[in-house]
């Protein structure tokens, strides 16, 4: 019971040399020998238990994060519940790192959304307002749609709150890197909250190469270290080409 209550396999390791000493003294057949076997079994159980205590796992291609939901998750989840009735999406940037445990503050959650036509946007806009969100850019869909057709970002927050906000970044096929990540999503699940993010390797490279601010480099460092065991060299190589093309296109503009 002592070993179980401490939940520490290292304590059992400490006992092993003592048990070995007893074995050498010919006591293997007495109860110490059985005790040794018992400890060995306990050790294996604890090692298995420890190996299971991970903060994440991959199940059928879905990245599972082992934590409770935060208020920020509930905000994003509530927004997505409305958005998903009208459009596809991809959550990108800071929230990808934060949702996987990066401990930092944020004001906005970036989300890629294919640019909608006027009618579809009206339905989405009205539904968001009906569900207690407000838009920074204006009160009615007509004035906000001017931003949409110009492919400028728009932001929504909860009623009577400023932050956090969802920053909708509109995309189409002309935005090559963003369109690429949008069409290669990775599913992530925290409790019952499931949403789509870019492949981890893509997100890391985008932050390191394109965004490249201090915060972005640290976000990438978080993802690189946390997911070291599941990151793929081949995927890094594949995505790097897409991102370098994007970088070059900025330089020629």
């Amino acid at each position, binding site marked *: 019971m002592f070993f179980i209550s401490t939940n520490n396999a290292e304590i059992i390791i400490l006992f092993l040399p003592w048990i070995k000493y007893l074995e050498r003294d010919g006591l293997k057949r007495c109860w110490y020998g059985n005790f040794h076997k018992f400890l060995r079994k306990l050790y294996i159980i604890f090692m298995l238990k420890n190996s299971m205590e991970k903060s994440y796992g991959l199940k059928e291609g879905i990245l599972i994060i082992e934590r*409770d939901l935060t208020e920020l998750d509930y905000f994003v989840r509530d927004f997505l519940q409305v958005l998903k009735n009208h459009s596809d999406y991809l959550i990108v940037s800071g929230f990808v790192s934060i949702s996987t445990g990066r401990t930092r503050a944020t004001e906005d959650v970036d989300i890629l959304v294919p640019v909608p036509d006027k009618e579809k946007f009206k339905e989405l806009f009205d539904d968001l307002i009906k569900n207690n969100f407000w838009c920074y850019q204006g009160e009615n869909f007509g004035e906000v749609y001017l931003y949409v057709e110009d492919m400028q970002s728009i932001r929504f927050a909860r009623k009577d709150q400023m932050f956090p906000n969802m920053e909708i970044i509109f995309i189409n096929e002309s935005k090559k890197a963003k369109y690429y990540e949008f069409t290669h999503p990775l599913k992530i699940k925290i409790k019952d909250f499931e949403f789509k993010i870019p492949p981890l390797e893509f997100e890391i490279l985008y932050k390191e190469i394109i965004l490249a601010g201090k915060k972005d480099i640290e976000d990438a460092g978080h993802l690189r270290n946390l997911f070291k065991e599941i990151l793929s060299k081949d995927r890094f190589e594949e995505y790097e080409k897409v991102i370098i093309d994007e970088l070059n296109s900025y330089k020629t503009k």
Partner: protein
Amino acid sequence: MNKIKLSKIPKTDLDYVEIYAENLKTNPELFKQQKMLIESQMKSSRSFFQNLFKGKDFKTEARKYLKERGG
């Protein structure tokens, strides 16, 4: 339970981020600290703006506030 194991001596902010991520891998308990920080930030933000715009129309004041700051 929430002790951080140091794989190297941290010098830069990035070192701290990397060490934290390394530890987080096998210690989901650290998520509790993250939850506290995030929720504290949200609570502070909510309280700050509700006091700032008290008695006025929130959206009008918020847009004015954002415009003044180039938002």
